[in-house]
């Protein structure tokens, strides 16, 4: 009696099984890695209507973050400044720069400049800037070295797990309130200083759901 299946067919189930396992593992890894905010969101640097350089303003000129983002200590939002703020200087400096054309237009017409949002949290997550900067979470901790960015890009994944890294161990990240806007802040005894700061500011970073989701 001739064989119905050729010899290699004996190997087929094993190979298929191995193939499926490899494929599933690859798929899981693929989703885990490529679908995570770490991969999809970090580095997001959309083109802005005005090529505003944080590197120049915050880096070279050393302007404080709060010169423009004035409401960060009172509001959940760190506001994008009104055109007025730009014009404080740029009615004197670079008054005929082509790049600043939209700024002057906005100033004259009263129409807003349509900045593209870089750091986007989902609508079901509540985040409050004021609550963080008032206890010593530095701008840099979430936004990275803004002073080195020609174009602002997202430096951290802003995922829930990333938030919780700090909420669970705030002492590893907090700094004195007066250093909040400092870029490149380092502290050798971070843990020791951090624990002091946590005690001083009565920090109790919540980790329950409804502190952010409601």
């Amino acid at each position, binding site marked *: 009696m001739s064989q119905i299946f050729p010899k290699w067919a004996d190997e087929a189930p094993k190979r298929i099984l191995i193939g499926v396992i490899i494929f599933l593992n690859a798929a899981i890894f693929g989703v885990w890695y490529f679908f995570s905010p770490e991969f999809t969101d970090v580095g997001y640097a959309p083109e802005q209507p005005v090529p505003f350089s944080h590197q120049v303003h915050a880096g070279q000129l050393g302007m404080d973050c709060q010169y423009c983002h004035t409401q960060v200590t009172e509001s*959940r939002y760190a506001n994008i400044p009104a055109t007025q703020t730009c014009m404080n200087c740029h009615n004197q400096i670079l008054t005929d720069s082509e790049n600043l054309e939209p700024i002057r237009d906005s100033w004259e017409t009263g129409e807003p400049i349509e900045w593209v*949002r870089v750091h986007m949290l989902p609508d079901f997550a509540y985040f409050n800037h004021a609550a963080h900067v008032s206890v010593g979470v530095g701008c840099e901790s979430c936004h990275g070295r803004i002073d080195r960015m020609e174009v602002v890009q997202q430096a951290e994944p802003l995922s829930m797990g990333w938030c919780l890294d700090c909420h669970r161990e705030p002492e590893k990240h907090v700094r004195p309130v007066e250093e909040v806007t400092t870029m490149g802040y380092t502290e050798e005894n971070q843990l020791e200083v951090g624990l002091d700061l946590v005690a001083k500011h009565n920090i109790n970073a919540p980790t329950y759901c409804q502190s952010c989701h409601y």
Partner: protein
Amino acid sequence: MSDQPKQTTYWKSLNELAQNKEYEKFVQREFPEDATELTDQVSRRSFLRVMGASIALAGFASCRKPVQKIMPYSRQPEDMVQGVPLFYATSMPFQDTVTGLVVENNDGRPTKLEGNNEHPSSGGGTNIYNQGAILNLYDPDRSHSPKRNGENVSLSDFISFSAEHFSNRDQRVLFISEATSSPTQNRLKQQALRTFTNAEWVTYEPFSENNAVEGTQLAFGQRLRTVNHYGQADVIVALDDDFVSPHRHQNSVENAYRVSANRKVTSVDDTMSRIYSIENNFTATGSYADHRLRLKTSEIEGFTYALASRLSESVNGLSAYNGIENEFSDHEWVNTLAEDLLSNRGSSVVSIGKEYKPAAQAAVAAINLALGNNGNTVTYHELPYRENRDENQAFSDAVREMQNGAVDTVVLIGTNPVFTAPADLNFAEALENTGTKVHLSDYFDETSRNCDWHVNHAHFLEMWGDGLSYTGQRSVIQPQILPLYDGLSEIEFINTIITGEESTGYDLVRETWQSYYPSDFDSQWERILHDGIEPDSGFGDVNVSLAADFDSAIQPELSYEPVSGIEITIKPDSTLFDGRFANNGWLQELPDPMTKISWDNVAMMSPKTAESLGINPERSFSSREVPVVRISGGNSTIEIAAWVLPGHADDSITLTTGYGRRNIGRIADGVGVDTYPLRTTSAMLYQPGEVSTTGQSYDIACVQDHHSLEGRDMIRSASLEGYKEHPDFATYKNVHGYEVPGMEEAREEGNEHGPISLFTETYGSYDDQPQWGMSIDLNSCFGCGVCTIACQAENNIPVIGKREVSRRRIMHWIRIDRYFEGDEDNPGAYHQPVPCMHCELAPCEQVCPVAATTHSEDGVNQMTYNRCIGTRYCQNNCPFKVRRFNFFNYSKEFVATGDDPEIIQMAMNPDVTVRFRGVIEKCTYCAQRLNRGKINAKIATGSRKPVDGAVQTACQQACPSNAITFGDITDQDSVISQDKRNERSYVLLEEMNVRPRTSYMAKIRNSNPELVSPPDLPSH
């Protein structure tokens, strides 16, 4: 107290009382059989199109996150901090009063209205119309532009028409306006009457104060407003005067907070006032009262005279009523009331519903005068804007003049007489016989359709205006947003007609107010805009004495004859009023406080009357249908669903107005039955009628048996005497006769907090955080429903439509259960608001397979929408039935099909997620407010705990009678801790050991031992 504690039986419906099989089957199911099926696509969509809302993102093109734009101001406005709401004072006009409000504005959009603490008509509280107003503002069905003969035209067309048409100053112009207290409108009215030499101005309200004012004319010879100070009275006799309900009394909020303040019993040494209510249908006041007598509407007058007659034997000033004999002369209530009133002279109030005829009003005024109440609990005030005449008569005369074709131009200011005017006046026909018709209104409504010109009215949140509180304090109405549809306010409209030019309300109001502050106007004006009220103003008291010829003048008016057969009573609707709130989804869906019917009006009748008509008082549950009756009165007949309301007077049928609108908007159209055809000038309140069954039936969405707790002990109550005897009557042990199971064992283990439990105790582990708790005082709750609407506004809760409601899907996070007690013909009634209990050992948390519902460190049972996969196990396991499931994607439906989706989105609270299909939601104790409070406290003081009172939930803030207290229970001095320590405090289903954070305070009734009348109150 007997050894076996008496268990009072509280029941929600006649079916529950009878405990029939169908009822048991109904309540045992969490949802009816078809709850998860979508069987009615068309009607569902049409409702969804209008309500629910969503956040539309900037674009869906990218498969990455959608690109969002940030648009900062060009020039930053002062005080504007993005993300921090701003609060401005304004006031809401309603008939001829205003209620002071504080409006929360998020990024320039008004999103929530709160009461103004400084304003006497509010006292920090609100009513359902105030809370619902925000949805009216964003109603896409409001008229968008002026119309000429139904065609859209521009505002400038109307202005040029006015300039031309009204340049003829000698034409016969008839102005018909809604009642208003606005000083500016009154100034313009005088100006109009001077400008047009042949003009007439009448005020028309379908449910006005006119009869009450005419009553004082009869009694005192002066037309005055009667202000009853219910809060200062020890004995209140309310003759069908539902003074805590906004649809029956213009000053309901002030009445509610003042009367409830006088009835807050915190210890056995406290006293409380005693309220007697005499009425035909069950009202909120009747359910709140200590004693209630049901009488036909047509008998109230006779009862009043009998009471006056009895009092005339003991006090002077009632000689006109001496010797009156009628069927109530020997009524035990007349004797008891007379006795109680006589022993509380000077500190009692007798009041009567404003709809009753002037002679009855005069009798009540004479009684108060004779009892020495004037100046103490009753004051009289002259209304500066009111004409010295019978306004109803003036309106009828004006309409007859229109019928005769003698009017050249009629200008209608914000009123809708084609829908609401007495049927015998035939207002639509009168309009046909009139030359030019101009109408200012919110909607292109029944009257607008019969007019040449329609001008769209600006919402009060969009306009400048002013007004007076019920007692005359001046308030400014300041706009919170530019008109969404470019409407005109009343004063701009009138001024355009007078001058033919466009004007701003701002200038008109300021011009009026200049006369109040001749010097230093600008700083005074700023103060008014900030405070919202001028406290140093008000109507002066008028000293009154009985008119000289009172006895002889009143005699012919005293002829009184009750309706012998069935009477038909027509009253304004509890949620839609006269129809002006008909297109408001929140108010349409709010169940009536007593019938618990949402989305419809019905003919209310007693069980006995129903039986005599051949209607089975017990509803059939399988069909949700109720029989339809045909009701004839005068020359009209309507067909309407019959509804059996325990406690309704026999041989009396109550109808409500405002339903049966046509072509107004997507919410209002086709809901309910128009009852105005039965209402005529001779029968404004009641009339004899004929009722018969039609054999047809009609679907009614009634929530009274939804979320039923099946007769478990939810309500605890006692008489004041019983309470003083047994202050601990509300404890579990005294109600059930034994201690909570497991408590003894826990005590042995040294745990006083609660019985032993299998689950891990959480209490005490988070003392460094505030631990939130709520207490609801049943002694202060009228069941008005303002907490439900405030919650809906604050928490973006969707409206789901009648069919969805009847499938038990109603989304309200705080429902109000209404319980009856005792005899089905004459029961007592109780209201119990039920939000989430935030159990410390929550049963819902233990069954969630994905940890979507968990406990927070501040003791709140939290719901995380993103984790929820919609198993509904938690809903099944919740003993209080407070969890709600999004069966459909209400929000997305709306965005996909709505024609103006952005408008309703503007009403949404930006701090609260709009929920999507397939997730459970429920009361969060207003998590957004808790977090805001905690963050603010942390930034300001570094403390983790906000100070007591800094955090208020939306329901607590809205409640006019302060029935709800909320706060941190770890703070021993907080109001909430005091309430929880009170001996009246109890929790629901204590035997289940779920440890609710929401507790209740037992109801106390100050019953009169003399009156052995139902409701028969328990002795403990």
